[in-house]
């Protein structure tokens, strides 16, 4: 009898060993391109090296992730394990109950000096828009790039210059959505930044923003994909463009285009992880997220792309670009030099008004 038991135990042990030897796939969704590459080098590769049993599979769904997530959760067959989303999308996903709530201090690693995660991530970023599903990774910004060869003499240096066609003639490129553009229009029209959302809540405020945008409307090309504005600048199609700061960095530093950045009133935004509800590998995902969002990993990502880590403790560790050897600190949207004037999106306000302003904005565009 004893022999039977021991042989059974051996079989069980073998089965377990076989099970663990079989690689566990984690399906991670992100944006593709240079951004996924930075995550691959800063998070995925070191994690897979330390955990040979785990294989991280990238899926580049970009902004299609939200619709795919909803389709999967509704059908009950969740194949995605972890999704990289903007904060605004994460709020929608959280409100719709498509993602897991997180507990920062049990899920996430503390800073090296022992500060708990809930204190170490930038204030409010873990509870963005009053939700509790979002784990921020980076702070990125939508800011302005201009062609350095487009203007003789004085170069654009502020938000006002973007709206100044007399001093800086030429085409502009702006993102084809109301967000940021409406706020910028009001700030450029003289509204104090703290009153912008109160103003936009009224019909007069919206009309005032459109009136300001009207002054440049026929000189604007509207972009929808992040790759477009650097291309439009490089082709000389536009002289000033709003663009993601990481894309501008790549155009300026990596591709040596004659482009420079205006940081005045850059619009901060967050990008981070959400965990789909009903995923099969929750334990493995939690283990991975703990690693990928610790202080060192977030700082490492800044070696590959110019987005600011979302933890206080990571800021000091940001070093040089891995390939180009450029000091990355001056290229971070979060550096003190660049963030003197910053537009911070009011996510709660946008959740209320997005649908309404989408309609108004598109109706205004079609006119």
């Amino acid at each position: 009898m004893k022999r039977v038991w021991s042989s059974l135990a051996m079989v069980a042990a073998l089965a377990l060993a076989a099970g663990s030897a079989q690689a566990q796939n984690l399906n991670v969704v992100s944006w593709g391109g240079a951004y996924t590459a930075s995550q691959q080098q800063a998070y995925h590769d070191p994690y897979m090296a330390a955990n040979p049993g785990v294989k991280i599979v990238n899926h580049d769904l970009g902004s299609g992730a939200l619709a795919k997530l909803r389709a999967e959760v509704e059908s009950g067959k969740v194949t995605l394990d972890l999704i990289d989303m903007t904060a605004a999308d994460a709020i929608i996903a959280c409100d719709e109950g498509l993602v897991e709530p997180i507990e920062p201090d049990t899920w996430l690693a503390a800073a090296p000096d022992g500060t708990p995660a809930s204190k170490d991530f930038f204030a409010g970023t873990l509870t963005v828009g009053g939700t509790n599903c979002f784990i921020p990774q980076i702070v990125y910004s939508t800011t302005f790039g201009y062609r350095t060869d487009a203007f003789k003499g004085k170069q654009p240096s502020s938000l006002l210059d973007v709206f100044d066609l007399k001093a800086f003639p030429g085409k502009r490129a702006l993102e084809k959505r109301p967000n940021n553009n409406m706020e910028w229009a009001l700030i450029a029209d003289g509204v104090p930044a703290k009153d912008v959302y109160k103003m936009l809540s009224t019909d007069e405020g919206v009309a005032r923003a459109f009136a300001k945008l009207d002054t440049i409307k026929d000189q604007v090309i509207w972009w929808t994909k992040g790759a477009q504005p650097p291309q439009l600048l490089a082709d000389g199609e536009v002289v000033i463009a709003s663009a993601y700061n990481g894309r501008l960095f790549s155009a300026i530093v990596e591709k040596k285009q004659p482009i420079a950045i205006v940081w005045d009133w850059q619009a901060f935004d967050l990008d981070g992880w959400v965990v789909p509800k009903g995923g099969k590998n929750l334990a493995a995902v939690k283990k991975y997220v703990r690693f990928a969002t610790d202080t060192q990993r977030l700082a490492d990502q800044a070696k590959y792309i110019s987005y600011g880590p979302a933890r206080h403790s990571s800021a000091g560790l940001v070093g040089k670009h891995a390939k180009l050897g450029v000091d990355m600190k001056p290229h971070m949207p979060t550096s003190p030099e660049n963030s003197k004037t910053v537009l911070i999106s009011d996510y709660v306000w946008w959740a209320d008004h997005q649908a309404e302003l989408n309609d108004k904005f598109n109706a205004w565009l079609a006119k």
Partner: protein
Amino acid sequence: MPTPTDDVMRTADGTPLKISLQRALVRSRLRALLLVLPLLAFVLVFFLFPIGHMLFRSVDNRIVGSVLPRTAVAIQDWDPDRAKLPDEAVFEALVRDIQAAFKDRTLGRVGRRLNYEKPGMSSLFRKSGRGAARITGAPYRDRMIAIDKRWGDSSTWRLIHRESGALTSAYFLAAADLKLSERGAIVRQPEPRRIYLTLFYRTLWMSGLITVLCLLLGYPVSYLLATLPLRISNLLMILVLLPFWTSLLVRTTAWIALLQTEGVLNDIMVFAGLLSEDGRLQMIHNKFGTVVAMVHILLPFMILPLYSVMKTIPPSLMRAARSLGATPFTAFVRVYMPNTVAGVGAGCIMVFILSIGYYITPALVGGRTGTFISNFIALHVGETLNWGLAAALGALLLGLVLALYLIYDRIVGVDNMKLG
């Protein structure tokens, strides 16, 4: 065994021939049905069911009733036409519903749903979820109003009352730039929010223009393909098919490189002295760019059916017309063209229906004035996650296409259509 005396023809076993024949027919029909059954099942499962399911979302309104079940029942007794607030029992139901939904994390869904109808509902429910979790007993009404004074506003309650049913017309109304007023009457959206009718109209007339241009350009090409000697027409065919096989994105991007203000075409015209350096033309990111790029992309869908029809027209017809005294022009118009109607019909309907639902090309080169309704369906599916509105817009587009198809059937006749 007595032989039957009537004059009915019978088979060897004595059953009347008519019945026997019928049985054989039924059997063979069943066999035929069995053969198409897999296809039928495929169409049902992968085509009709998903489309039906998606279209149902355009009227589906179960969110309020499922997340706030007690409130949805309690509010039925309330009279929305009177200014008075619902009584304490409704508020108690609301508090219990919100507490349960806050715990299940479903409250955000109801906030988002009602926010489509009234901006601000999203934050109202977000705020109320946290607040109501602390309410332990009466008075419920005063406590809810203390959390947010909008609970004391009867317009909030009218909205909940209106949207507590299982079906809604709100998405279809929104898709037609209409809405329900607070009192339940159908009114137009305020002027700054009207957008979809403009887009439907634009999609239709631009698709019509694209179809006409495709016909004008495609007809002569197909004629050449069908009449030139094989050696040359084969080469021409390759020239038609090669772009057809190239990725859509590549072709669209190529048009951007050609047409942009610093692009090839403008450069040539400036070089040739036709344009000044400052007078470069804006040919992309507007209607013009959309039409040019889409005509190019959809042209093969016009040429191929036209070609297949023209190939079957015997050259002897034209020769006969000429020998009977017709000028080349008359022979072409009176003899050749009527024979190509089937191909023209097929090509036009194909190009028109494809362009009405086109989405990537207008998104990339349409700019401000050249985007289509499908770009907005994509926006609501992918970004705003308002699938009800997307479904309503899709249903209207589907209805529009079907209506046009019926009109076409009336005028030209679908039987006359020939795809190959």
